[in-house]
């Protein structure tokens, strides 16, 4: 049986540059652009923002999409660093 694949998932776990916007009216924080390996991704939509703790460190996860990719970004609230944890190219 042939299974059609919609997506190709890559686990990355690399540091990335992220530009972020905070809207003081809506109190919403959202990544806008992600720069990784010389390429700039423009965020079209934040699907979900969730958080958890690793010890006392609060980690924020932003699940976002660009025109053609899903990105999972992790923000470490102690080091203030960003990591690109996962990228999924949408092929549907």
């Amino acid at each position, binding site marked *: 049986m042939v299974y059609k694949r919609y997506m190709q998932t890559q686990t990355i776990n690399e540091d990335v540059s992220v530009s972020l916007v905070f809207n003081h009216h809506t109190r919403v924080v959202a990544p806008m652009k992600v720069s990784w390996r010389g390429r700039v991704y423009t965020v079209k939509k934040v699907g*979900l923002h969730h958080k958890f703790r690793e010890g006392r460190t609060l980690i924020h996860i932003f699940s976002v*999409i660009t025109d053609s990719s899903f990105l999972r970004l992790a923000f470490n609230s102690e080091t203030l660093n960003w990591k690109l944890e996962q990228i999924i190219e949408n092929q549907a």
Partner: protein
Amino acid sequence: MKFNTAPPSVLHIDINSCFATVEQQANPFLRGKPLVVAAYESANGCVLAASIEAKQFGVKTGMRVRDAKQLCPRVLVMSTDPWKYRNIHLLFRKLLGRYSPHVSPKSIDEFVVHLDQVLHIYDNDPLLVARKIKNEIEATIGDWIQVSIGIGPNRYLAKTAAGLIKPNGLEVLDTTTYEEVYRHLPLTKLTGIKDANAARLRSVGIRTVWDFYEAPLWKLKAAFHSVTSYYWYMRLRGYEIDDVEYARRSYGNSYSLPRPLETRESVSPIISKLVTKTSGRLRKAGLIAQGVHLALQYKEGGYWHQGHKCAKHLFSTQDIYEEVMRLYDGAPHAPLRHIAISVFELHKENDLQLDMFTNTLEKVHLMKAVDSIHKRWGDYVVYPARMIDTERFIPDRIAFGGVKELEEISI
């Protein structure tokens, strides 16, 4: 006794296809596609949630991934991401808490909201509250998250109403609608009435929900032979019988092995990790235990379990591990499929008895030091040496149906 004529003031809120919908919320490219969240992505993995699109192909919770792919070859299979679902659970608790001071989570994806003391604020209209809740979920939690809300005079009928239309239902089961619902709902669609109870009811001539409702108490007693008959009699008439909170009586963790294990050497690291998890949760709750229990399921289908009460109080990982291994050594040794350990007979940590022959306080200080390291740096920063190489075993999981586990969720 007639149906309860009091205004329906209990809301049951059920997140539709919870884990799968949350994954679609996180990744909008997955929306509209058949997908399942499974314990493992392999063919033998158990489906924990199917998206609404996958359900249209007949895919259901509890199936194997292999069977889901048979029904829907295009289905996407994802593993669980517990913190995503826990965050959504906490957001729901916060949102619902703004509508009523009486909100009880029933599971990771089900909530009960009692409106009786606040209904006057909403013009005595529970439908108005339900619509507001639905709108607020869409606006603040996620535009893809859908819920079915049932409204009834008691918890049971609110849950029944929530199950009438999925996804995105909003139904009222009260004195004006119950006859219509009871006349059309199949008996086994009632929560708690599956094959065995349906057979009991059939034995006294009850074949439909309407028969069940119409049956006098003596007939239900003839079917159930217990106080359960009275509970059903009251439930179906809309009187509250299920508003009971049970105190926690044990802590435990379990694990289904990806491949069968038989030898003590191969099983002990797994038991050690289960004990490390359980003992950490016990101490975090400020409790100590006096009993341990071990349950084993064998590859060939057998089941063995045993528990014992100890003379001393248990709180240290090492002591609990030793007691569990004592039980394990008395169990039949054959390839294992599933291991569950638990501690019971709980007491507050202040009740700890010192021991004449061992330095109990030394153990207390050691465990406090270990727990503070975990609190600062995260779980499993320090662990027993026998746990080396267990990283891939016993991942973080959501406890199904465990209301007490939900109290431990915090960020």
